[in-house]
């Protein structure tokens, strides 16, 4: 064992529970690690050191008195800063919520706490989750731990970078069109976007409600399983959370695996960076070595995925973000002397450029006269795509391809070309449009930059993703944490 902060969730929990070290010692090692690298990585918006230490001491007390401290006792979690934490600032990386302290915990946060996990801080993101690089944060970009000049992916860039640089044990992100999987891929860690409706969204600050799910980002598949088992299942506070608590498929790491059939999606591999496709094909060879059947298929509706995704996401966003009028919460901006209309337009000019762009486009596609031309079409394409994907899951257990069509790139390199940014999401948006689960797992490196492989499965087939991901994890031993 090198350092305490290197431990995964299960190892850390075991060590604390067995008395190898205390939760306080473990949390201290994480805090020291943060102090050493955070200046360069900038994964966090808000740190919760004092409370985290208090929580750790509570856990140590429980362990001393042989009380049940929970299955995640002492594990430090970083929470994406668009997930509500009671009493801890939740900014969405926006000026608009600069001073917002939620009066309640998101269901996922509450569940993690109930399992003994410790919230170590709030992680950076693109403002309101709108972006793929974490450059659109009001509080400055996060740096990729593998190369500090490069983007960590987004929008949960802080969640990817913090786990990869070992500033927390595990983290939560949210995935609207790839926001968990993209940073997992760019930071060489594991990220899961669960089936729509399997993890409660209560407390997740909405960007596009019909698309997004909260998902874990971890260094190992095993930790993903542990976090998923803690957070998923029915929540009376979310009408779109379908699973009953007792019905949640309990995920686990199987020791022996029957061969599965996988299909590689031609459209997803054709247009991508050659370094990426090489890595994906060699990973596929690993599956074949285990006797898995690999077929190449074509998904026609992939070509319509991006227009459909961005139309729906922006439409929902334009409505979701209407509430930020700074009347009940927000940032310091006195109302005195203002007439209401002037006040809210002055206040709302504090959204970032990318957010404004999406609000404008979203309002446009919903406006009368354009609704059937854009929004309605987008919904029709979405259901076509879902049907096409589901029909393929009748034939294959998993669909496979790269998570991102490109390698991580330099900070600032693409910031002036929003369209180029949107196009990078082509592989990830499919799972959000269809509501199916998808996982990104490290598959290799090119010039020291991580490459992730994406697996998709049918609704509520997370176990299939875990099986394949864990097989690949064992077959190709890829470092999850760079030296920094």
């Amino acid at each position, binding site marked *: 064992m090198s350092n305490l902060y290197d431990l995964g969730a299960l190892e850390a929990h075991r060590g604390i529970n067995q008395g190898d070290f205390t939760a306080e010692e473990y949390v201290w090692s994480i805090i020291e690690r943060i102090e050493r690298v955070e200046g360069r990585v900038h994964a966090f918006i808000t740190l919760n050191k004092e409370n985290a230490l208090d929580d750790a001491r509570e856990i140590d007390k429980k362990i001393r008195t042989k009380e049940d401290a929970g299955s995640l006792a002492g594990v430090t979690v970083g929470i994406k800063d668009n*997930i*509500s934490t009671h009493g801890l600032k*939740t900014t*969405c990386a926006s000026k608009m*919520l600069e001073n*917002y302290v*939620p*009066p*309640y915990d*998101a269901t996922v946060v509450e569940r993690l706490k109930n399992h003994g996990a410790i919230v170590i801080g709030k992680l950076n993101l693109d403002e309101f989750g709108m972006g793929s690089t974490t450059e659109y944060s009001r509080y400055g970009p996060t740096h990729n731990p593998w190369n500090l000049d490069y983007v960590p992916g987004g929008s949960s860039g802080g969640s990817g970078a913090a786990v990869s640089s070992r500033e927390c044990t595990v983290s939560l992100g949210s995935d609207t069109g790839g926001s968990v999987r993209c940073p997992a891929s760019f930071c060489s860690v594991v990220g899961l976007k669960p089936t729509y409706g399997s993890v409660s*969204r*209560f*407390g*997740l*600050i*909405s960007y*596009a*409600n*019909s698309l997004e799910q909260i998902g874990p980002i971890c260094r190992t598949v095993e930790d993903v399983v542990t976090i998923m088992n803690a957070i998923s299942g029915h929540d*009376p*506070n*979310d*009408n*779109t959370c379908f699973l009953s608590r007792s019905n949640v498929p309990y995920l686990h790491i199987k020791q022996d695996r029957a061969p599965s059939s996988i299909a590689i999606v031609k459209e997803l591999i054709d247009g991508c960076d050659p370094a990426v496709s090489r890595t994906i094909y060699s990973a596929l060879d690993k599956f074949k070595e285990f006797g898995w059947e690999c077929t190449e298929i074509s998904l026609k509706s992939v070509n319509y995925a991006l227009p459909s995704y961005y139309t729906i996401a922006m*439409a*929902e966003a*334009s*409505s979701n973000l*209407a*509430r930020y*009028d700074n*009347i*009940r*919460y927000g940032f310091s901006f006195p109302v005195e002397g203002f007439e*209401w209309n002037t006040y*809210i337009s002055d206040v709302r000019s504090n959204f970032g450029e990318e957010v404004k762009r999406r609000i404008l486009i979203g*309002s446009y596609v*919903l*406006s*009368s006269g354009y*609704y059937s031309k854009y*929004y309605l079409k987008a919904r029709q394409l979405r259901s076509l795509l879902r049907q096409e994907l589901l029909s393929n899951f009748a034939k294959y257990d998993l669909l496979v391809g790269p998570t991102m069509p490109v390698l991580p790139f330099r900070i600032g390199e693409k910031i002036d070309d929003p369209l180029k940014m949107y196009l990078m999401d082509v592989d990830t948006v499919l799972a959000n449009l269809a509501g199916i689960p998808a996982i990104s797992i490290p598959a290799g490196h090119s010039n020291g930059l991580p490459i992730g492989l994406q697996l998709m499965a049918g609704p509520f087939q997370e176990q299939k993703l875990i099986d394949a991901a864990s097989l690949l994890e064992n077959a190709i031993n890829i470092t999850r944490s760079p030296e920094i």
Partner: protein
Amino acid sequence: MGNILIGLEIHCQLTSLKSKLFCSCHEDYRIFKPNSNICPICCGFPGTLPLLNQKAVEHAAMISYALGSNIPEKIMFYRKNYFYPDLPKNFQITQYNLYGLTCIGSSGSVYISDSKTIRIRRVQLEEDPGRLSYDSGNIHNSNHTLIDYNRSGVALVEIVTEPDFTDPGEVRYFLNKLSSILEHLGVCDTTLEGAVRCDANVSLKGGERIEIKNVNSFREVEKALTYEISRQTSLSTRNIKINSETRHWDEQRKITRIARTKEEEQDYRYFPEPDIPLVMLGNDFYTHIGKLVPELPDERLSRFKSKYTLSDHVANILINSKKLADFFESCLKIYYSPIEIANWLVNDLLALIGGEETTILDKLKIEPKHMAELAKLVDEKKISRSTAKQIFSEVFRTGQAPSELLSKTDSSQINDENFIANAVELVFSSEVSAVEDAKVNSSAINFLVGKVMKMTKGRADPKIVTQLINVKIVQLSNS
């Protein structure tokens, strides 16, 4: 005033629910201090999600059912996007028929006369916004607008009619009937402040549509419409073009005033609410709701007319208020004399409580058992009608039982013929000229009857008095 078309949009709060439409705050917001009946959900805090109140769906469906509407097997919610300070999310969760008919009700009809039925376009379930208040009482003289979110998220049913009304009187009749329907369903207490609101649109032939908003009670609607029609008529007789606009009803000054904002130009950007999945009601739902819906005013009216042989007029007055009709039927359970009791209620009780204020019925001192006892005394001729009226107002005032009052004041009717004959003798001896007159002029007999009644303080049975006097006059004429 020909060629007038009027359509209504009525909002009624589902006041008998325990909680708001999407959160567990109290539906009965009126009893709270400002901003003390609120939670993160109804204040639109980031990350909160609407949780649909199933009972509200049931109550809204009962209204749809009672208005003869179709109820679909699945319903959807939509977002209506607009910025307004009383709207915490800056969108309202409501219903809309964009992907098929997914509002809780559509294509209903309400009978108002043999020649007229009002068509109901749709019934929808939605959330009420918060309330704005002003430090000096009105927007014009105030420095601040204050927002109270206690009402925000309260369940509201919107009823939209087709423009089928042709005069304000029809509107009043319809609204009275709607109130009675809501009262019978027990889903909306229309007497609570702000529980029912009505917007109306009016157009004269050839003119554009004018919206009247802000009418905060059913009773004001007729006044607002009458004002607006005469305003539009006078404009059009002077050949002034009537422009489509939104006007507000000024309750103090009894006029409509043009609204400062051009509300009709708003684009609400409706789209399906992603946080509430399609609500599957199923094909048994209509039958299920049918079982929850009690006897409605129309059925009750025909039952009152056929079973109790009440006149259309009397039956209508009773049915117009559920409380009055219930009072009536409670009386009948104690003593069955439908016409007698109905007349007492419609003529005497309503006169005492002042017209349409039947809302205070359950707070009255007079109870059905009193009314039944009184009717019985009259039917059995134990008291005269004039005595009964005195007792009635006494019961109304004190809540004492009629029999108790009767024994106290000894006002029971006298039908002892000897006693009455004595009184007649006394009157005949003191009113000699009237007796003479009565032999040739029958109207003088009434004068003599009156004298006897006065002498017995109204307690003698007037029939016996008249009979005895007639006999005596005949005897005197023959002798």
